[in-house]
């Protein structure tokens, strides 16, 4: 009988380029902090703060998450990315250049830097969303991990669209409701993309590597439903100024996040492998 097959995984160079690039953005964030940490700690709205946040989230996290997803989607949920080298050749330079120009624009490099960042990040993110979305749409997998990964990629698309709208305010002087857009951008990026992705990956790797019991199918569906309800509720509440709905959505979001933590801790307490890793 033949040994393990890795034919479904893309070439190592596809994810590796994202993983090699990401730390440089972390270093850049550290340099901005070292240069002017007073501004970063003083205000959420300081240009240095916005630059550091995006160096870490777009520059570091998005690079790693995009590269890792291209690598694991085929083996984790049978979502095969077609032409992975071509996809990486488009997505990686777009995210890298856009991810560098965006914080430079925040730090005063001017509207041209923000405009170029908007175009490059739009190309990189939406190329990734389309490719990953198609692969996930065609996946034959059954169960919650596939559902949650699909929601995460949709969350990234919404977060990026809101981000582009925000850059348009600064870079193209469009008149849009800034405060609402910022809050929704942060909510969709953190809960709709990052936490949703963490949820989907946890469903796979917590039982696999920590040898815990599985997340039940019901839990696997209820947790993303809570997060999605919170995000949709917030979006409606903030655009229509419905305060009771905002409170209800916050409660749903807290239930989703804390529910994920409690369920995961319970599973880890029942792990089959009793050795501390």
């Amino acid at each position: 009988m033949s040994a393990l097959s890795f034919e479904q995984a893309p070439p190592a160079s596809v994810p590796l380029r994202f993983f090699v690039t990401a730390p440089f953005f972390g270093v850049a964030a550290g340099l901005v902090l070292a240069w002017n940490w007073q501004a970063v700690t003083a205000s959420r709205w300081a240009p240095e703060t916005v630059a550091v946040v995006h160096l870490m989230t777009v520059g570091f996290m998005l690079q790693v998450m995009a590269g890792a997803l291209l690598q694991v989607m085929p083996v984790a949920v049978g979502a095969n990315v077609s032409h992975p080298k071509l996809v990486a050749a488009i997505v990686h330079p777009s995210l890298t250049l856009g991810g560098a120009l965006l914080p430079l624009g925040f730090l005063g490099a001017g509207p041209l830097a923000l405009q170029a960042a908007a175009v490059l990040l739009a190309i990189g993110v939406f190329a990734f969303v389309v490719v990953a979305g198609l692969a996930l749409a065609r996946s034959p997998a059954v169960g919650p991990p596939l559902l949650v990964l699909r929601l995460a990629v949709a969350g990234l698309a919404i977060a990026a669209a809101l981000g582009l709208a925000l850059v348009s305010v600064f870079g193209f002087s469009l008149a849009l409701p800034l405060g609402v857009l910022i809050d929704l951008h942060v909510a969709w990026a953190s809960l709709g993309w990052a936490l949703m992705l963490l949820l989907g990956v946890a469903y796979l790797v917590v039982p696999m590597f920590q040898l815990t019991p599985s997340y039940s199918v019901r839990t696997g569906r209820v947790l993303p439903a809570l997060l999605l309800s919170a995000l949709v509720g917030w979006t409606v509440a903030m655009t229509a100024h419905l305060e009771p709905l905002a409170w209800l959505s916050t409660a749903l979001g807290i239930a989703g996040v804390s529910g994920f933590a409690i369920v995961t801790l319970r599973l880890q307490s029942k792990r089959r492998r009793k050795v501390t890793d």
Partner: protein
Amino acid sequence: MSVTIDARGLLPPEPMERVLEALPALARGDTLTLLLPREPFPLYAVLTREGFVWQTRLEPDGTYVITMRHA
């Protein structure tokens, strides 16, 4: 005859190794059942190549039950 491998307490790649050890001994008409906390897509590729067919069922507790036999 039916053989079951409960691989839910095994670290990768041991579940795959157990299945690859058991498949050559599987007679026509017999089934090999694997219990796993995830869907084993790398195994599916091997099964297709080696001429086996399989059915996957997801239990409410999150266990995937993969039943394999000769095509």
